[in-house]
């Protein structure tokens, strides 16, 4: 069924309110639904938080077309890029979901119910030949699991082709994080580590950089296999001007952007065990600082946000993994998945 109603474009309000409104308008107060909209390119995109809700409202032109599905029979694959090409299909799927009823339906929960293992980031600002991969390291249960080596690669320079030394992935440990992502492969050339170019750095230096950033490792590689690259279409007009031949990912916004990310998101919290005046509470032989018994004594530290160096807007802008948690906090389940990644903790 279709409903049409109006919203104040300048003051869209919060997603929660909007969700309530939808439920009210459709008279389905207790039904979990998935909300989607078609953007200017015709892609079907989800609305599930304040940010994409605001985005949706701001891009409405002038009409915002919203699709609502029951959560249990939602078709997640309908969302995402390139849905424009499947637009018809999508719409028919959405409108006549009974088409699919014949197939056994696999229930997949929403992205936020997963713990991210890796992601491809900055697709819009990188040349298509490059891939920026972020590895999320959780505790010590799964090793990062890859090796790097020295090698040489061919670069396009003003003087023609030149052979220059480079760093390459030499081996993936079976079952390791790197291998399980499928985003890194043997012989991929490593171009950047957390926004810092590796050219001119020794293997040992790059090793140290990667290990120092291991809790939130962002590596930019040029995949050895260039056939799986993201193919961008016309809507990425903003930054697709970059030549795909130029191997140096040297555009300034690119580096700055990743620098900020690296800085903000790779911070870890140090732990302090305070022992204010009651030494007997912590036995001298307490084996390590991580002992569960001493949980109550652990105080998490405020990280660098307090020092005024970080404009808060930067903090907010970085919503993909910007929320924070520590192993020791008792966090809400959704945030648990991002532990050790974040920047701020306020207790």
């Amino acid at each position, binding site marked *: 069924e279709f409903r049409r109603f109006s919203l104040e474009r300048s003051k869209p309000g919060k997603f929660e309110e909007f969700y309530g409104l939808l439920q009210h308008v459709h008279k389905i107060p207790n039904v979990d639904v998935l909300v989607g909209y078609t953007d200017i390119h015709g892609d079907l995109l989800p609305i599930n938080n304040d940010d994409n809700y605001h985005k949706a409202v701001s891009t409405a032109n002038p009409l915002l077309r919203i699709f609502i599905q029951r959560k249990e029979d939602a078709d997640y694959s309908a969302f995402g890029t390139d849905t424009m090409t499947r637009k018809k299909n999508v719409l028919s799927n959405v409108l006549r979901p009974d088409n699919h009823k014949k197939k056994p339906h696999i229930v997949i929960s929403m992205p936020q119910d997963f713990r991210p293992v890796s992601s491809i980031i900055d697709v819009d600002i990188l040349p298509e030949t490059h891939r920026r991969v972020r590895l999320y*390291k959780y505790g*010590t249960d799964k*090793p*990062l*699991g*890859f*090796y*790097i*080596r*020295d090698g040489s690669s061919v670069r396009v320079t003003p003087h023609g082709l030149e052979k220059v030394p480079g760093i390459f992935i*030499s081996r993936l440990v079976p079952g390791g994080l*790197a291998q399980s992502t499928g985003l890194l492969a043997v012989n991929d050339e490593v171009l950047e580590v*957390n926004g*810092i170019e590796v050219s001119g*750095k*020794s*293997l*040992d*230096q*790059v*090793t*140290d*950089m*990667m*290990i*120092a950033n*291991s*809790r939130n*490792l962002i590596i930019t590689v040029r995949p050895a296999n260039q056939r799986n690259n993201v193919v961008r279409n016309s809507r990425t007009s903003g930054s697709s001007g970059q030549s795909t031949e130029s191997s140096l990912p040297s555009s300034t916004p690119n580096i*700055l952007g990743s*620098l*900020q990310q690296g*800085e*903000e998101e*790779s911070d*870890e*919290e*140090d*732990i*302090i*065990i*305070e*022992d*204010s*005046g009651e030494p007997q509470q*912590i036995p*001298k*032989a307490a*084996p*390590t*600082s*991580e002992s569960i018994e001493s949980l109550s004594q652990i105080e998490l*530290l405020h*990280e*660098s946000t*307090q*020092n005024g*160096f*970080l404009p808060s807007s930067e903090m907010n802008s970085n919503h993909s993994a910007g929320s924070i948690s520590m192993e020791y906090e008792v966090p809400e389940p959704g945030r648990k998945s991002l532990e*050790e990644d974040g920047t701020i903790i306020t207790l």
Partner: protein
Amino acid sequence: MRRFLRPGHDPVRERLKRDLFQFNKTVEHGFPHQPSALGYSPFLRLMAIGTRSGAIKLYGAPGVEFMGLHEENNTVMQIHFIPDQCQLVTLLDDNSLHLWSLKQHGGASELREEHRFTLKGPPGSPPSATQITAVLPHSSREVLYLGTESGNIFVVELPSFRVLEDRTITPEAVLQRIPEDNCNRRSCELVEALREHPKNPDQILIGYSRGLIVLWDLQNNKATHHFLGSQQLENLYWQRDGSKFISCHYDGSYTQWPVSSDNRQPEPLENTVPYGPFPCKAISKIYWQTTKNGLPYIIFQGGMPRASYGDRHSISVIHGSQQTAFDFTSRVIDFFIIFSSDPAAEFDDPSALVVLAEEELVVIDLKSAGWPAVHPPYLASLHCSAITCSHHVSNIPLKLWERIISAGSKQNIHYSSMPWPIDGGTNIAPDPPQRDLLLTGHEDGTVRFWDASGVCLHLLYKLSTVRVFLTDADPNDNMNTLGEDEWPPLRKVGTFDPYSDDPRLGIQKIYLCKYSGYLAVAGTAGQVLVMELNDEDAEHVVDHAEADLLQDQEGYRWKGHEKLKTRDGPVRFEAGFQPFVLVQCQPPAVVTSLALHSEWKLVAFGTSHGFGLFDHQQKRLVFVKCTLHPSDQLALEGPLSRVKSLKKSLRQSFRRIRRSRVSSRKRRGGSGNASEVQEANAKFDQDALQEMELAPVQRKIEARSAEDSFTGFVRTLYFADTFLRDSSRHCPSLWAGTNGGTVYAFCLRVPPAERRMDEPVRAEQAKEIQLMHRAPVVGILVLDGRSTPLPEPLEVAHDLSKSPDMQGSHQLLVVSEEQFKVFTLPKVSSKLKLKLTALEGCRVRKVTVANFGSCKTDEYSENDLAVLTNLGDIQIISLPFLKLQIRYPCIRKEDVSGIASCVFTKYGQGFYLISPSEFERFSLSTKWLVEPRCIVDVPEVTSNNHVHNKSGTENAARKSSPGDCGEDERKSGRLMEHALLNDEKVLKEIQSTLEGGR
């Protein structure tokens, strides 16, 4: 955020930075590595040493030093000063000749290479035709005579190095003028020696390898005399009056030959085999020195009986009935005699014998009875026993300085009182601005105290800790106890002794309190000694305590070395630093950190297992803390012993290689076998190197986990009086940082002075910080309310520092190998940080607070962190804002031992080992710069028709630095700073081993 931490482009700050920081490598202290040639100019009274890496160093009076480096980096084979000139010629092993001169340049003079030259034979001639074997700079200063393997003697004009072909003395020409039948072409192969007649510059003596000696008249181009030696010739020497000369031979004999006008083919006067009758080794060089009393000095190298003493490196001195064979600890490179250089003097009257051995310089006083050694003011062999750690103390109070010198002078009584005989040039460098001590710990359990104030690194005092312990080697069992009637009359000279009796004695950490004279020294077997300076000999019992760092941890077994056994009962100690407390860690692992607080009378020490605090006033252990991770098996089983043995075996194999190379290094062709071996060696090395390069190198990328080994290593210990618990009361505290990124803070209660002996010192753990990046903590520092590092103990009491600001809030700086972090105190919250590794891929190896004064104004100075990274870069990082100020490349990153040995001073200078025996000194400060400045007075040239450059005075300074800001400004700077760290050599080695495995 990074961009906020980037060095700003504030022009004021940039200008200030230029006034504060400047990088210079200023002096090389110690003994040149692998010396290969020696030269001496009696005219300039300067000595020159060449090395296998192509360096050439000139030394005169203390402080007079010059250095040059051949571009080719080839071994310097021979050095010859041009008579009566500020010039010298070097011969390299690629057969090239180089002319160096001391020339004035911009108010100071420097050693410069002027010309280079390679002798070329006619086309098609074999290389041996021009292979130079002997060089004679003629006294006319116009020409060089070059003897070659082919027997030709080429004449080369100076300084242009133009070959005067018409004056070449060919073997054919020589043979033509010798009427003898038993001489053939082969007798004139290979010129072994060329000597100018001491009275008649027109005659030169030519010695050929096969024994033929010819006195050649240059004017008439003919042989005036010839002498038929039966033995292979090694060298020649003229008697001063020119009436006789002496030749020495391969069979260990020497022969005197008369030169008179009536006999053109004289028979030898005397032929002696000094160490016969059994076969002897060659005498490779000989001097014949006349004296007033008529008895000559005969001084020669080698000649020992081949079978029983063939392995000795000896130089024998014979004077009448006195005969001594000085037995050197390493191969003799060359030697010379200092004698009367006045041409008018009738006798040589030798005063000193100067011997360059491979590992040390030895000077023997020939004038005093018993021929004692002279204590050299420079060229000290730093590596007499391998250096295991070093510690620098700036600005020593005069009182302590004098007491150390007086203790040292009691050790040096066996040295000659003769003033240093090599005294050319004048040191015009200003007196050093302050008295600095460099303390080096050695593998044999000694600590050497060096005067590091100026250009000459001079040994003041040597402290041995061996006496406290019972070791296998009896100290009386040294090799000097040869009976009086022994033949040959060998006498051991020199101090080089790299073979340690017991590696457990090795010194790993040193801490000296310059105000109280307390010294703490810690070693390889977990021993910690606290010492006090005593001006008298004393016999007393050393209090002994044991610190069980494992406490109740069970099921661990230490598989490393045993602890050292101590001597029971009182021990006699000579004047100087005398131990009064010994703490032995259990398990006896190497001590990895040490701190001493002389005001509180506490010493803290840490190993791979934990750390402890000892009250050396009450002689009581205050507490111990085990830092071991339960899963860290490696630390428990004694990984150090394994690393140690690896290191040892490596060293042994190097020694083997060196020995085989050293074994015979006569000139090429002389003994083809040896050079073949050498070549094979070199080839092998190269192959090995290539193999290493070809091996696929890959590095594992893995996050550091808590379970990594060695996390318990205590890397740094620090005492501070600060606000640990609340912001109203400050108290003494002890901080410890581990390899696993943990910082422990202990609150201490030290009883007031009047009840110091009655009440115990108490300690309670107050804080524990775990850095999440888990990198090793290499430095801890507390900044006071003005963000100034806390002063050293007793510094305020001695009025040498402002008392710290106890009103404002203190800050804690934790330096790990990867990051710098500032926390607030007493509530620990993170304030600032600088990530080094995540951004640059380098790690902190050394860090110290240094005070930098402006070269423009005396008023301004600031404290910064001087940081050495694993890439060999030095960075200066500002305090308290942690901004990178400047970066200099200093040490090659492959030079692991150089990086490990680096020590910073508190005024922005530093030292690191460039070889086992040499410290390079560098300066980061514009204000504190120690470098040689000297004048070489050129005496009036006496006899000559020759006018050459009339430089009456040469002003000379080596490595004159750009922007030398003048010594006027080098006044005493402010005295507030605090070192973070002692150096951590062994740890670094382990670290690098670990990294290598990763």
